[in-house]
């Protein structure tokens, strides 16, 4: 009885909607989206959806807010397991590989080819640094939506105060450590101002370590095969020893774990002179920082290199042909130069679509905000983001050990050996089913 009246109600609603719009049946699709930064992004996404639905009367798209990146991952998996996948998901770019390994997402090549385009031409729209996390295993699996890199933020007032030039920020680890030593302030046995702070909570720390290892010539993981990470290597050992020394030798960084939120708060309060944070925090810093500040590339030891972050759009398997088409239309619309640029100016993430920067409003924005330009310039040194089988657990295997080094409970070498061993154990099921699955004796 209840279901009957509900159905009736739904039918009336549908009839009304169709009556007002077009006579033809609408394709209803759902998109899952996370908000990694602040609340007002969710509102902006709703208004984008309204714009999309207005421009596409044949589609009724709903954006479903699904929490953080991790929660979105969780809810997407649950929806897929329950057999009711959303038509599109904005997914943390380094989680895409696992969906591919588990055979849970659609390759986008057939949709690209149906439009008369090719995978090469399609990917060419996006910055080259973003290709690795979207196109692998010979297929296109995701469309970059908004991306970031880690960036060095410095307090220009502090720099001038100790006789450093804020317009010439440290570019090498040597300069970086030297600047931090000059900037740190001690009174008695207490540090009243830190030279540098890094975000060391889970997820953020792994990303920072990727940047440091890559800046030290390292690869961090095997971009071609999801069963290998390079934790116990010279490039990682150098990076971790540098972190260890910042906290324990030079004593310019707290020897305890600081959360990303605590890092930005300390930067605003003038309690630290330098921080490394995401380019995704640019708008947030711009709005809240009272002191004069500058941004710069993450300093290098061997070469300039950082990993990208951010999210891409992907399409789960198990959708009807109409829903696939509708989702594809939505994905293309959301990553078009105009929308991409709009979202970038609103959030601080950079626009993955290169053509966005050809638009006059975007050129104006870059001219007005030189810090956004630095973020963009660093992109040419950016690389793919670490992604393996069991990504989160493999990342945590390293993070737990790095935290132990920062707090002074472990030495870098033993920490990396433990991290490697734990990470290998996390990837073992995949490795045994792939690289170590060998022909038995015949």
């Amino acid at each position, binding site marked *: 009885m209840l279901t009957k009246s509900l159905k009736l109600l739904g039918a009336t609603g549908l009839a009304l909607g169709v009556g007002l719009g077009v006579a033809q049946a609408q394709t209803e699709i759902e998109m899952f989206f996370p908000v990694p930064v602040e609340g007002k992004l969710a509102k902006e996404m709703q208004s984008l959806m309204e714009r999309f639905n207005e421009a596409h009367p044949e589609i009724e798209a709903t954006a479903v807010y699904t929490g953080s990146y991790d929660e979105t991952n969780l809810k997407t998996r649950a929806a897929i397991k329950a057999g009711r996948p959303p038509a599109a998901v904005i997914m943390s770019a380094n989680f895409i590989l696992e969906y591919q390994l588990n055979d849970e997402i659609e390759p986008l090549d057939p949709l690209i080819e149906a439009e008369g385009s090719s995978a090469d031409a399609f990917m060419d729209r996006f910055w080259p640094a973003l290709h690795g996390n979207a196109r692998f295993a010979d297929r296109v699996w995701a469309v970059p939506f908004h991306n970031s890199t880690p960036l060095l933020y410095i307090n220009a007032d502090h720099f001038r105060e100790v006789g450093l030039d804020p317009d010439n920020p440290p570019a090498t680890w040597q300069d970086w450590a030297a600047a931090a030593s000059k900037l740190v302030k001690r009174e008695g046995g207490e540090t009243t101002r830190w030279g540098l702070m890094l975000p060391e909570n889970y997820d953020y720390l792994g990303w920072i370590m990727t940047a440091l290892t890559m800046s030290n010539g390292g690869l961090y993981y095997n971009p071609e095969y999801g069963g290998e990470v390079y934790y116990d290597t010279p490039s990682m050992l150098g990076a971790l020893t540098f972190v260890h020394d910042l906290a324990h030798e030079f004593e310019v960084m707290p020897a305890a774990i600081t959360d990303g939120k605590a890092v930005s*708060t300390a930067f605003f309060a003038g309690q630290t002179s330098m921080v490394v944070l995401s380019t995704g925090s640019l708008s947030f810093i711009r709005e809240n920082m009272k002191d004069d500040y500058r941004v710069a590339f993450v300093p290098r030891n061997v070469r300039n290199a950082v990993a990208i972050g951010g999210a891409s759009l992907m399409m789960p398997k198990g959708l009807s042909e109409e829903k696939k088409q509708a989702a594809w239309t939505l994905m293309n619309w959301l990553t078009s130069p105009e929308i991409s640029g709009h979202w970038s100016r609103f959030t601080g993430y950079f626009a993955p679509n290169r053509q966005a920067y050809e638009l006059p409003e975007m050129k104006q924005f870059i001219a007005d905000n030189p810090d956004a330009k630095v973020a963009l310039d660093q992109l040419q040194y950016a690389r793919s983001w670490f992604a393996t089988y069991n990504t989160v657990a493999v990342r945590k295997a390293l993070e737990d050990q790095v*935290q132990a080094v920062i707090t002074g409970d472990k030495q870098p070498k033993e920490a990396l050996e433990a991290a490697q061993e734990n990470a290998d154990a996390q990837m073992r099921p*995949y490795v045994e089913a792939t690289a170590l699955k060998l022909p038995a004796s015949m």
Partner: protein
Amino acid sequence: MAQTALAVDSPEHGTAAPRRVRRLAGRLGADGRAWLLLLPSLVFLCLFTYWPIVQVLLQALTIETFGSQATSLGLGNFDRLFADAAFTGALLNNLVYAVGTIAPSIALALALAVGLQEATRFNALLRTVVFFPVLLPLVAAAALFLFVFLPGIGLLDYYLATLGAGQTNWLGDPDLALWSLVGLTVWKNAGYYMLFFLAGLQAIPLDLYEAARIEGAGAWRRFTRITLPLLGPSLAFVLVIALVNVITQVDHVVVLTEGGPSGATDLLLFYIYQTAHESYDYGKAAAATVVSVAILLALSLVSLRTLERGVHYEAS
């Protein structure tokens, strides 16, 4: 007995439905009526408690391998669970957390209840103040404490600095982080437990105290010889709730530390969450769930026994 149960329907005596129910109830007999009354909750308990427990048991015994659909039954998930250093770490953390939260919060609640027992207007105000943290959801409390615990700029460090203490990284120091969570939990729960003790105190006859006073017993003696023994049932009940809280509350871990640094605040429930939803190791997560459900069942069994004994004591 049946009469009183059905008296609830009295305002609608005139309608046909209750009369039909009454006739039905009469035909069922006492046992049938009891089952009938239990039925609604039983349906939901089966749907949301017993059936999931059965499923978790099955999942815990099912061994899956990556890249193949074939599964086998066995205890392999439990072997892997007990070999996992993160699991034993979480178990140990949970033990420390239990001891660290239960004893102080119960002692504090008891002291507060005895101290604020008399119903003056000032005491009512103080009770409200102490009870206030209970009104906050744990997630909200944890989000607030994020700013209380901020090193250097947080409220805690700010006030400690006026006393001359230096900066402390409450959540970032692996030796301190779990104790910071303990502090938050005690702050959050003490007011709640106080409520049960206040209720328990109301039931203690005042003439006992009068008699004791005439015999010349001091305040401490009156507390240990009258208040504490007669609060036995309340104490046992609060202990059950506190024990269950230790295993089932996880919001503050999620909000404040995510189990870090270096796994120092990883509690059992958070370990299960991570294993299931971050490592997708459903077998091992189910095995850990079975272990924690077993602990919970054992705890409630033991404590319910003591609870019953407490009630008898009071009656005699």
